[in-house]
């Protein structure tokens, strides 16, 4: 259900008047503070399409770096009408009851989910929020669903260990969390995960990855089935599991 129609077709940023197109930016340049550094900051802003633009703050940080804050008018237009983003989600949100029913009806056995933080990532709060009964944002986690069997392997799990455990447990879905993103650790680790499962002969389980900073990569690039970002709730994940693993199933109204 994609919506492309919209009242406003072409939009611009808004400062205090429609169409003013004003935005704020800040950055550091590795040059000494002074008029030349300011000119460099203005040049960068110009290349980014800001005109006019104003350096409202510049501050030396030691002898070799300068921090800048700028305000300016963005010359770019945003084709809002052309943005094809799912207005809702491409699958329905289900109640735990509906999810359980779907699994019972279609699979006729419990759905097996294996979760972990891989690599050296020790941030379990996110995956726990999805898996543990306690849940997130008022929704109970997947452990709460009678028809889902959850194996939470915890943090710092090596990829080959995860692959082995998933096979042993006959996992329908593998849920992996990646929170540390410095030097794109999350991307590398996820690709490594996907590659490891691809090497297996068995049909691989559904691969789901989650974490707060996956903005500009796509699931296809990573070789997984789905990415979940900031603020994901367990219910969204449960709904997706049904949608992806039991595509034929439709909830009764």
């Amino acid at each position, binding site marked *: 259900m994609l919506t492309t129609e919209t009242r406003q077709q072409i939009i611009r940023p808004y*400062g*205090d008047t*429609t169409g003013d197109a004003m935005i*704020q930016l800040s950055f550091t340049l590795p040059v000494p503070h002074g008029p030349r550094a300011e000119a460099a900051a203005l040049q960068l802003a110009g290349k980014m399409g800001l005109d006019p633009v*104003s350096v*409202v*703050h510049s*501050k030396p940080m030691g002898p070799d770096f300068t921090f800048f*804050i700028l*305000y300016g008018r963005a010359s770019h237009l945003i084709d809002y009408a052309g943005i094809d983003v799912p207005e809702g989600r491409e699958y329905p949100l289900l109640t735990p009851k509906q999810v359980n029913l779907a699994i019972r009806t279609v699979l006729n056995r419990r759905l097996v989910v294996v979760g972990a933080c891989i690599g050296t990532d020790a941030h379990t709060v996110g995956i726990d929020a999805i898996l543990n009964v306690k849940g997130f944002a008022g929704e109970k986690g997947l452990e709460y669903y009678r028809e889902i069997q959850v194996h939470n392997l915890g943090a710092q799990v090596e990829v080959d260990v995860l692959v082995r455990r998933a096979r042993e447990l006959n996992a329908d879905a593998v849920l992996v969390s990646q929170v540390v993103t410095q030097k794109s650790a999350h991307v590398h680790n996820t690709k490594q995960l996907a590659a490891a499962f691809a090497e297996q002969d068995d049909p691989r389980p559904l691969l789901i990855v989650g974490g707060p900073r996956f903005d500009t990569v796509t699931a296809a690039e990573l070789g997984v089935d789905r990415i979940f970002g900031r603020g994901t709730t367990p219910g969204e994940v449960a709904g997706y599991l049904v949608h992806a693993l039991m595509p034929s199933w439709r909830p009764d109204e």
Partner: protein
Amino acid sequence: MKLGLDPGTVATARRLAARAAEPIIELARTHTTVSVERAVLRLAGITGADADGTPWVNRIVDAVRDQVGLEHGVALPFFDAYEGGAYERDAYKRDLRDLRFRLPTGAAAEKARQKAGRAVRDGIARIDGNRRDRDKRLAEYGDPPMPWIYLIVATGDIYEDIPQAQAAAREGADVIAVIRSTGQSLLDYVPEGATRQGYAGTYATQENFRLMRAALDDVSAELGRYVRLTNYASGLCMPEIAALAGLERLDMMLNDCMYGIIFRDINPIRTFVDQRFSRQIHARAGIVINTGEDNYLTTADAVDAAHTVIVSQLLNERFGHEAGLADRQLGLGHAFEINPALPDSFRMELAHAQLVRELFPDAPLKYMPPTKHMTGNIFAGYLLDAFFNLAGVMTDQSIILVGMMTEGIHTPWLSDRDLALENVRYVRQAVGSLAEDFRPGPFIVGRARQVLAESVDLLARIADDGLLTAIADGTFGVTRRPPDGGRGLDGVVRKADGYHNPATEILDAHD
């Protein structure tokens, strides 16, 4: 009462303020101005402007002044000449050109006086009605707890201001102020109609008032919380704008006894006369005034000149009381403007703010955020605003103008306001009644007492030498303004015997 101020010293300060104010009050009682007279006409229901945009009230007052002088007031000559009945007031527009004015005497005077009285009473009745309306809404919605959150909109375009004001109200603003265009205070007339062309603010016009009031009434109903509206009874048209505020149910008005003199170079006499009349209207309308002492600290140093703020507040209080304002209508202003680079700057701010709180326990103090030391560093600005918010809560201020992190850059954007509100909300919520845990030690107590002592000294000097001399000497805001300088002096007229003003007659009686 945490500072242990000496009640004797406080009483002395008030006594000296009354002495310093007395000659000025006398001046205000014995003079009128073109704007006072125009305000009378506005109360009498004269609205609209000619094809060039000059309001009819200006056309009338100028014509009366030319033909018979203003020293007897505009009311008698106008209502003598003006044939339209009380309920067909717009008739004058057709025939103003033909009106010939005289100063009526005898029965003619009596007839004019009656007509004028009726017309003005209608206007004041509308103000009274608005006041009741406000009270009813407040009773219905309940009044938000103090400190009230005060936010400005300043796009220059009333139709951009409205959604921004509504958005601000939804985000938690208790009071919305529509900033005026830079030039308006120097206009000797009030523009007409809805306007979209202001610079750094939107013109104060009756129609803009009406539009914004209606928009805020809508959002008040939506939120179940009465959102107050503020504008500026300031500049050359102070009395008229006060009248319009009463007629359109504004709730608070910026209105200071000296701001126009110092920051707009308006003549001192003109200002003192105008402010008295405007305050009488505010008193009647139940409007809270906001005084402008905060501004002094943008040109003077906030530590050196701290006592000038106190002195001015005591004068504003005295003038306000004399004009009929109750304590709870005295939104005395002060500001968080100490240089943040000074050691203990925050504790000095606490000393000043607590001093003001304790000197004026019943006044709805209006506390202004940092402006002068706000730079282009929006992070530093956000931080400074947070400490301002904190000082406000710790010293129990009544109305908190919400500071913008972009104060040093541009008039507030939608997002600036949103972030500013998040800031206030966090601080209020997180610190709760931290005032309970705030017991000023020797540093703060000492600083507060010192400022009070300096205030008493300055008041004594002013009481002796005269307020006009003090203003001429640059006492306030390090700006010198001689009594005969500045704009608008030619609009001041000494009242003659038999001067008649149907509005003051009602308003004076009310006190």
